[in-house]
């Protein structure tokens, strides 16, 4: 009987597991954003969102123009242009340093850090990316910036 009751208590606790916060509560205007490169490409680079933020490929594309800052974020080239690649306008900075989001120039540009060259991105902001959206991109970098 005692073990039955103890087991019930354990089941009670296990039944309450799954209380994790929803990622969509964090990512706000892009509820489908996940810390994967394909998701970031689709939700951030390729498309605008409900906040009115501009899609990155409005300027960072080679379709009909030269990509701004020499950064082409169209899907076929974006990963190679970001991960382990130096910034054209600030050669001492690497756009994405796998595992090191705080020193990745992409994050500094999105956050508008003090030592960036040029303006905070997106160029047409505000609105800029929300803190939650940037958190997800930082997480992707933190876990090694995989091409997933």
């Amino acid at each position, binding site marked *: 009987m005692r073990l039955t009751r103890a087991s019930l*208590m354990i089941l009670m606790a296990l039944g309450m597991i799954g209380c994790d916060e929803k990622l969509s509560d964090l990512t706000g205007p892009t509820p489908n954003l996940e810390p994967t490169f394909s998701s970031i490409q689709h939700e951030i680079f390729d498309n605008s969102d409900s906040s009115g933020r501009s899609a990155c490929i409005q300027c960072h594309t080679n379709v009909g123009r030269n990509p701004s800052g020499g950064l082409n974020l169209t899907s076929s080239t974006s990963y190679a242009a970001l991960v382990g690649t130096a910034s054209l306008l600030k050669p001492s900075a690497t756009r994405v340093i796998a595992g090191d989001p705080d020193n990745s120039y992409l994050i500094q540009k999105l956050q508008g850090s003090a030592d960036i060259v040029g303006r905070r991105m997106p160029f047409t902001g505000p609105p800029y990316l929300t803190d939650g959206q940037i958190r997800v991109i930082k997480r992707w970098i933190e876990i090694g910036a995989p091409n997933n």
Partner: protein
Amino acid sequence: MRWSRALLTCALLLASCPQLSFAQNTGAKTPPPADDPDKDPNASQPDFTLIALPTSLRLPQFSSAFRVTHRFLRPLGEGDFGDLLDDFFGLDNGAQIGLEYRFGLMRGLQAGIHRTSDKTIEFFSQYSLAQQKNNGFAGLDVIASIDGTNNFRDSYSPTIGVVLSHELGSHGALYFEPIWVNNSNPDPSEIVDHNDTIIYGVGARLRLLPTVYVVGEFLPRSGYTPGVNHGSFGIEKRAGGHVFQLNFSNGFGTTMGQLARGGTASDDWYLGFNISRKFFR
């Protein structure tokens, strides 16, 4: 959603006491025995908690107890002693206050609710699996709880653990309490390394005088471990059904989720007190 979680908690609490359900179905009353040993004073474990951690003191069936916790927000080390005296040891500043009520659902099984003034609500239950007086070595309880912030609307942290106690005659008791706190991290699991915390709580209560005790507890952790490991010590006086405790802690946590998230800083200590009252003779 929040009500469904609260109802689930209540339903499962009730489901875990089959004797109570049986009594309701048949209409038969099962009064606690007149000589219920759970009503006897326990000199080694005079209260249901150390400072924040639970003890293995049993609450008699159909009896209850109330507790108020108070943690003043002013760090004791802020400024010089004159400043501290000027703020009357922190009493002039705000405090995190907790109110708690627990009830003995059946012999060995107690459940309760604890709310703190940062709008966290915790539902908890505890079942006594083994008592030292029967096996001669240790008491063993299983505990389960869930707390939710913002009046149980956000960030739910279910918990399960055990309380292993060893009474030192009538001189006090030692405790070891491994506790697993799920979803202690308020961020979604997709963007964090650790979403859960395991607490390895240790504590002691030592009886200095017939009704005066010193208490202490320390909560090393693994998994999600922000802040510093919670530590606390205090002195307390038992007076009939009351226990008055003056304590010093490096954080304000009193629910399991709060304890999992740790203290504020290792060199910031805060004055606090607990007052508990048992409603049984």
